[in-house]
């Protein structure tokens, strides 16, 4: 029901974490969208010999080992990281909702089969699934990374949606809908999906944070976003040998990850509190 979803968002907005998180996220997204237009090219290396220079008026966050502007790379990295995370979560959500609906609605052997596959997939930590997929790849293209992150993230969502569908099937309004002869498609799209939206929204929000952390970790291992495309994890990897001589090259991209994931999780926290007020 759209009404209950709006109510959920309103209750989340009343939560202080919800407002703080949304505000930070808005600033981040705005910076990621318009920031690069005002900043130096993140890829071009102006003067490799000069090496890493500390923060100054020209470079507020200093420059990295190839003398590229750290601020520009952090901002451009936000663009890449946020886009990858948003697309991957969207993909995971769609797949998870589809599988969960099919399993919960049709039940029987379809449900049993799908849930056994999900059980098996959940037994392998997601990082290992990604490592095994990516280790063979030579320079993975960005769209493939999105695809890989999306297709490894739907297992828990499908469980969640299935549970919601099973719960809703017991509700009188669903029985009533069955009684008046509502077809499967209409039942799923009009009754089940809208009523399962709340928990799915919470899971999706927290999923964005998880994907940003995973992507930065993979990039740190050299398996995620490939240089010279700026990514926060890749920047920390580049900064590793300069830890003592140029700490700014490591600190700022890492801080960007913390702030972004924290903002996303604050919103998720507010949403889940709005969903279940008793646990807040």
């Amino acid at each position, binding site marked *: 029901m759209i009404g209950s979803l709006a109510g959920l968002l309103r209750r989340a907005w009343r939560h202080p974490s919800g407002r703080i998180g949304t505000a930070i996220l808005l600033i981040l997204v705005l910076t990621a969208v318009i920031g690069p237009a005002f900043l130096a090219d993140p890829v071009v290396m102006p003067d490799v010999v000069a090496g890493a220079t500390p923060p100054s008026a020209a470079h507020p966050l200093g420059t990295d080992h190839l003398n590229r502007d750290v601020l520009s790379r952090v901002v451009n990295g936000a663009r890449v990281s946020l886009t990858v995370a948003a697309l991957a979560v969207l993909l995971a959500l769609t797949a998870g909702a589809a599988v969960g609906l099919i399993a919960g609605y049709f039940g029987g052997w379809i449900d049993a089969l799908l849930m056994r596959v999900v059980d098996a997939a959940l037994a392998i930590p997601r990082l290992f699934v990604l490592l095994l997929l990516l280790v*063979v790849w030579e320079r993975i293209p960005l769209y493939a990374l999105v695809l890989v992150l999306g297709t490894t993230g739907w297992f828990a969502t499908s469980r969640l949606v299935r549970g919601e569908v099973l719960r809703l099937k017991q509700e009188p309004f669903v029985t009533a809908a069955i009684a008046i002869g509502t077809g499967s498609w209409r039942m799923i799209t009009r009754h089940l999906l809208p009523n399962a939206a709340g928990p799915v929204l919470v899971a999706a929000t927290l999923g964005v944070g998880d994907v940003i952390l995973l992507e930065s970790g993979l990039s*740190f291992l050299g398996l995620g976003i490939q240089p010279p495309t700026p990514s926060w994890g890749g920047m*920390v990897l580049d900064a590793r040998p300069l830890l003592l001589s140029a700490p700014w090259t490591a600190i700022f991209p890492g801080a960007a990850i913390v702030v972004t994931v924290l903002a996303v999780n604050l919103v998720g926290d507010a949403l889940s509190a709005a969903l279940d007020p008793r646990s807040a």
Partner: protein
Amino acid sequence: MVGGSPPAYRARRPGRLTPVSRWLFRRLLQAALTFAAAVVLLFFLMRLAPGDPLSRLAGDRAISEQELEFLRRRFGLNQPLVTQFRAFLGGIAQGDLGVSIEHYPEKVTSLLASRLPATLLLGGTVLLLNFIVGVWLGVTQAVRRGSRFDRWMTRLALAGYATPSFWLGLVLVAFVSLRWHLLPAAQMTDPLLPLDASPWTRAVDVLRHLALPALTLSLTSIAIMMRHQRAAMLSVFRLDYVSAARARGLTERRVLWRHAWRNTLAPMITLLGLWLPILVSGSIFVEAIFNWPGLGSLANDAIAARDYPVLLGTAMLVSGAVVLAGLLADVGYTIADPRVRQE
């Protein structure tokens, strides 16, 4: 529960399984099937990416086409996929996970066995640390629900959860080890320790090396423990027996720990299955940063060297541990909470 007389009146025939053992048997079977399916998934995951697992080797090091062909034959990669899969399953049945490429001809199983103790030490320490500190903080938060302490602890925990362990590890190394020289930056033991050092000196040495990796892993993962403990306590506080215990005039501390907390223990045990994947994933980064000689750094070296049998073996071991943890958590839950047993 479909009709019939209540089960309590039915005489139990000798030799028939009790409900609990039947449940246990089914749960064991389910765990075994899940693990088997995970193994199949793992094998085919490796083959989903373009090219075979060895094609990356040529890009990274001086290796001739003939040597590559020899390796392909040695690892059976020139065989049809079905044959490879059968050989892989046959190997597992004999407890053989193949040989490493990087440490040729060492067996994957012996590599895993040599790295397991360090990971168990690190993981066990973090688990213990998070359990003690996380339980205490979560309970205190629940008691002082809505207070400034509660709100700030929630935010701090979220901040810790948002921090990438590889970055926190690097920052801690930079300041605590490299700049202030307070704790060692890498490895598990000091290589310069005299050979006749006492066991006490050796234990202190390991503890000093353990401090930073354990702290990194704990700070980035304790949030989950705190949040679940807080939520579990809040749901128990609403129940009648807590009010009854208060009404009997018991001290607040006794009500809190003996009556309320004890009943959150069962749901907390089920967290074990959730916990392990997070801990293991985190330890890949933390062990790599601190050169901790465990499974995480083994996997990390395997990634760098494209040593796919080792990576596959590590993933299998980890998945087995996750399935086992889930099983133990379920069994523990049943033992801890008699209400579940009667179903």
